């Protein structure tokens, strides 16, 4: 973020009079509130401009004028738009997104049911992506300009350029269709479904809790490809960022000092340099995690993964607007929370940012 000098001065002045922690907290809370309301407002507007008449979808085409007007009033459509917005806001606060046309159940219940699947997918993806991306970025920075660096660059470029839905299809074709190494779409084979009790909604964890390893390994063989794909996307981003953070650190004088002191190269790179990029790296990882939640929309469609992405796209195609808006709000809120979380991490753990 680019701060002008007068902004910086203003900040400093405020800090001298108020406790920076309280000020920081107040500002963050204000930002979060404004962003959330804005997000809900945009969603609300989207719901209003849609060409589908919400009254007609309830009363049907052949309803009489009086029935139509009655439903029109019941939905609150006769009120001024700003009042409608506050009603919408209140509904969201109470967790009432209306009923889904498709499942005939409250949208919130549906979202609670499907969210763990997305969370599981994105989490496994992030773990693999971080586990491979950080070392790749570090090695690329240490061996800058060598063939390893070039390979890391190409790997990242390919990740940035590949349509996820396409590579998902190709992956299914090769590893499921031709080689038969993994299981196909879905979270479990049909005869493993509903064997174990649902605790967290994440099958990998639930099956371990129930001590059922056959379910666990079946779930692994289902999740490995979609999670691996998402991992590749986060690897592309994380390795690039790690590399540039590391290059910056390796240029510093304390690195030279550490080397002169006779520390092993391993300790210099992995303890001193990497230790100093920990904070920005966590920010990057939080952002890429948020990105994976979004990337799961298309991935879930390909792999028939019953998460929030598949829920939104299925609802889209059947013009189930309540479900679309509810899903959009939830993904948006999670996204905002992760963004803020990464901002806060930065502020609290990096002494230079204070």
């Amino acid at each position, binding site marked *: 973020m680019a701060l002008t000098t007068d902004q910086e001065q203003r900040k400093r002045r405020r800090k001298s009079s108020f406790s920076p922690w309280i000020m920081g907290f107040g500002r963050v809370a204000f930002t979060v509130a404004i962003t959330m309301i804005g997000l809900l407002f945009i969603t609300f507007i989207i719901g209003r401009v849609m060409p589908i008449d919400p009254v007609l979808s309830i009363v049907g085409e052949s309803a009489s004028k009086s029935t139509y007007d009655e439903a029109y009033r019941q939905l609150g459509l006769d009120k001024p738009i700003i009042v409608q917005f506050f009603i919408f806001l209140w509904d969201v606060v109470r967790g009432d997104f209306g009923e889904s046309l498709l499942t005939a159940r409250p949208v919130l219940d549906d979202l609670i049911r499907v969210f763990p699947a997305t969370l599981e997918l994105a989490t496994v993806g992030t773990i693999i992506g971080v586990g491979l991306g950080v070392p790749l970025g570090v090695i690329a920075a240490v061996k800058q300009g060598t063939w390893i660096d070039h390979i890391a660059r190409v790997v990242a470029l390919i990740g940035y350029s590949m349509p996820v839905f*396409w590579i998902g299809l190709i992956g299914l074709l090769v590893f499921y269709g031709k080689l038969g190494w993994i299981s196909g779409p879905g979270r479990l084979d049909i005869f493993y479904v509903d064997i174990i009790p649902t605790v967290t909604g994440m099958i990998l964890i639930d099956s371990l809790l129930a001590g059922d390893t056959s379910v666990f390994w079946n779930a692994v063989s289902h999740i490995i490809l979609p999670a691996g794909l998402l991992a590749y996307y986060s690897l592309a981003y994380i390795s690039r960022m790690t590399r540039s953070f590391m290059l910056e650190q390796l240029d510093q004088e304390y690195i030279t000092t550490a080397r002169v002191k006779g520390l092993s190269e391993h300790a210099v790179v992995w303890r001193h340099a990497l230790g100093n990029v920990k904070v920005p790296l966590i920010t990057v990882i939080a952002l890429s995690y948020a990105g994976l939640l979004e*990337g799961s929309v298309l991935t879930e469609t390909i792999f028939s993964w019953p998460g929030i992405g598949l829920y939104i796209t299925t609802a889209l195609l059947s013009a189930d607007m309540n479900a*679309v808006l509810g899903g959009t709000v939830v993904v948006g809120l999670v996204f905002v929370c992760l963004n803020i979380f990464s901002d806060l991490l930065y502020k609290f753990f990096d002494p230079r940012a204070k």
Partner: protein
Amino acid sequence: MSDISDHKKPSLREWLTSDAPTSRRQAKFSAYYRSWLALRSNPMAMFGLLILLFLLAIAAFAPIISPHDPFAQDLALRLSAPGENNYILGSDSLGRDILSRLIYGSRITLYIVALVALMAPIVGLFVGTAAGYLGGWVDVVLMRITDIFLAFPRLVLALAFVSALGAGIENAVLAIVLTAWPPYARIARAETLTIRNADYIHAIKLQGAGALRVITKHIWPLCISSLVIRVTLDMAGIILTAAGLGFLGLGAQPPSPEWGAMISAGRQFILDHWWVATMPGLAIFTVSLAFNLLGDGLRDVLDPKKSGK
């Protein structure tokens, strides 16, 4: 042979690389030429540029080079493998030639990319320069709105927009623009803040120029180069989002040969007839890779401080 005649008639290259430009035009072209030389020394960027020029040529001459009519169906020859029955890349489930459809599809891709690449930065430029130059509550309000749009996951927002507006190319473009402008506004604002207090801006203001004139004549031109770099880097993302919308059935509608929609159509045949979905995916991949390569190179040339070198 004399020195004077040499001065009068320098070769084009000498004129361009001269250390002492004699006119504004010469200085400008000389700067462009130096950038070009730097870009030319980057093989990856040149490779990307070549692919894109090739794509432009294909789109321009689509009717001449495509071997078949992209919409002509031949159910007897449906799902021919690549090379079979005169179909170089095979045929799809309705017996249409995949190569010809890819060639025509390049026009749709370029159309979407061009529209988004024109509209999104302009929206961002308006918002960003207004916020940066006017400052005060205008800045606060505009930047809050920008942040709210930035907070949304792009694809999900685009999905919601398209589902509200209705499926179709124009609505897909509109949805992508609505989700793509905030970063440009941020960049334009940052640039404006750095030049707002420059001496030459004060000089113009002393001459009586109003905010509109300062912004349009003196701030916009300086924001262009950083916006261009960002747009080139974003092109790949735009292509992928557009293809994703097409894949979900929310972009171009059939029988339009849009690449994302073609992948979607080939999806049900993926296990037995791999080429139907694979070929359009390769096309998307190639083009977005080309944009990424070129964008990387451009950034190194035009913006050395951010390239990490």
